[in-house]
């Protein structure tokens, strides 16, 4: 069919690559969440403050976040090699890819968190304030629960973005499906491997998006 011969595929290798992609994805998603959520809350809180120097902190944070978001991911990986080595000991393979993935995705997720917190009705925050809620209580018991659908939608977008980041990290020996597609499909002209790898990623993205949408719908009360 179309001059393709799928019998040459090494399914074992494809299986290992898929597993690697999943590992990278899960680990980087967890750390992105752990880092990005507080960062997003911090951005939100600083942006609402009336004090001059807190707003200055916001502007600085905001610039850093924008810089990290505007550096192409492939360059970020290379630029972060010393940092990556100092944290996980290697700059390649599954382990070596996780730090740049997290550094690349956390600022992105933080912005999405900030945006969804801003959507929370000001009146509800005021009501909580009038009941004597402290700042922490407002964050934990009002802002985050009220913004939950938005946060889940943001997380879904972030994880889907991470799928394409893991593929890019294949360019520089990151392992996983992207790596496979580049090595066989591009350098050795084995179109079959590339097609299968890309298909696997498409399916993965579809599944993630569906799961995310489901969760968002489950938690939407409006």
């Amino acid at each position, binding site marked *: 069919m179309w001059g393709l011969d799928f019998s040459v595929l090494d399914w074992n290798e494809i299986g290992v690559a898929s597993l690697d992609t999943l590992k990278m994805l899960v680990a980087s998603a967890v750390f992105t969440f752990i880092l990005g959520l507080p960062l997003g809350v911090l951005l939100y809180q600083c942006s609402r403050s009336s004090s001059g120097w807190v707003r200055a902190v916001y502007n600085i944070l905001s610039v850093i976040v924008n810089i990290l978001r505007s550096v192409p991911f492939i360059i970020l990986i290379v630029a972060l090699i010393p940092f990556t080595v100092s944290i996980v000991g290697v700059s390649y393979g599954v382990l070596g890819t996780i730090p740049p993935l997290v550094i690349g995705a956390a600022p992105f997720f933080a912005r999405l968190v900030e945006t969804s917190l801003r959507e929370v009705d000001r009146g509800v925050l*005021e009501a*909580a*304030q*009038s*009941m*004597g*809620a402290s700042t922490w209580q407002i964050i934990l*018991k009002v802002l985050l629960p009220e913004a*939950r659908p938005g946060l889940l939608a943001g997380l879904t977008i972030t994880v889907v973005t991470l799928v394409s980041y893991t593929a890019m990290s294949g360019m520089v020996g990151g392992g996983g499906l992207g790596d496979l597609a580049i090595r066989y499909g591009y350098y050795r002209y084995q179109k079959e491997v590339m097609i299968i790898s890309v298909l696997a990623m498409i399916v993965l993205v579809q599944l993630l998006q569906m799961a995310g949408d489901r969760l968002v719908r489950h938690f939407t*009360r409006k």
Partner: protein
Amino acid sequence: MIELKQVTKKYGKGAKTTEALSGLDLTVHKGEIFGVIGHSGAGKSTLIRCMNLLERPTSGEVWVDGVDLTKLGKQQLQTQRRKIGMIFQHFNLLSSATVYDNIAFPLRLAHVDKTAVAAKVDELLQLVGLEAHRDKYPAQLSGGQKQRVGIARALASDPQVLLCDEATSALDPQTTDSILKLLLDINRKLHLTIVLITHEMHVIQSICDRVAVIHQGGIVEEGTVTDVFLKPKHPVTREFIQGQAGESAQLALQAPHDGSSRICKLTFLGEKTYDSILSRTARETGVDFAILQGTISKIKDIPYGQLIVRLEGDAETIEKTIQRVTAEGLDVEVMN
């Protein structure tokens, strides 16, 4: 219970400053329902939001239950705010929480233990008549039901004071009445001091004991609802009351009359509303009268009647009639 002293609130800086409140003084007594009425932009919301420091006055003092809130630190203010409940025009419920969890919210903020929370919430659900809706989310409720949740939530921490910011303005007339009745019930049952702001005279008339009229950031008239309502002094107050009485009173005042006849507004208050004072007096003095317009209504639960009549006869008879009915306890205002 609440005392505002020389409260000024300015918004904005420099040339763009708007002064929403200008050196305002106000006292609300314990256990009363105090109404504040004013036009849009008069400073009503700013005023009520100063009472729990959601809005910090630019200068002045805010005393609630013997404490000057403007002098408190952040944590002390949070503790004091638990004694001051508040309900809002747009309800401001947590959309992600059930009716039960919304009402439990202030208790959980105060770290009340679980069994006590459950007991309190059940009691409040019963008070506001929402037992059947405890597990619904706000989006599944009507406006009136949402406001009931708002009221229950505001009462959860056993406050001394309830502040109502246009609590009925988003509701239809029937629902408004049921919410007002609930507020009155609560005021009587729990001896709660209630401050409510509104732009509807009807709300003041239904449940308030005293009223203040706010205009351009200052109080222009203040007193018991009967006094202010039946004998308004300031033009803004008159406007609100005329708006209430409607066109027919205006028409009555335009009725034809000759030199000796007099158009008078007679006000009957309380028991006198149902008394036949006018016809009795007319029989004695021999005056004739034409009824031009009449209303009978209630201020809170005091009945009152207002009658616009044209008294006909010679000057002396009319004078005597006016003296007689005044002596009988009616209030007479000669309109021409």
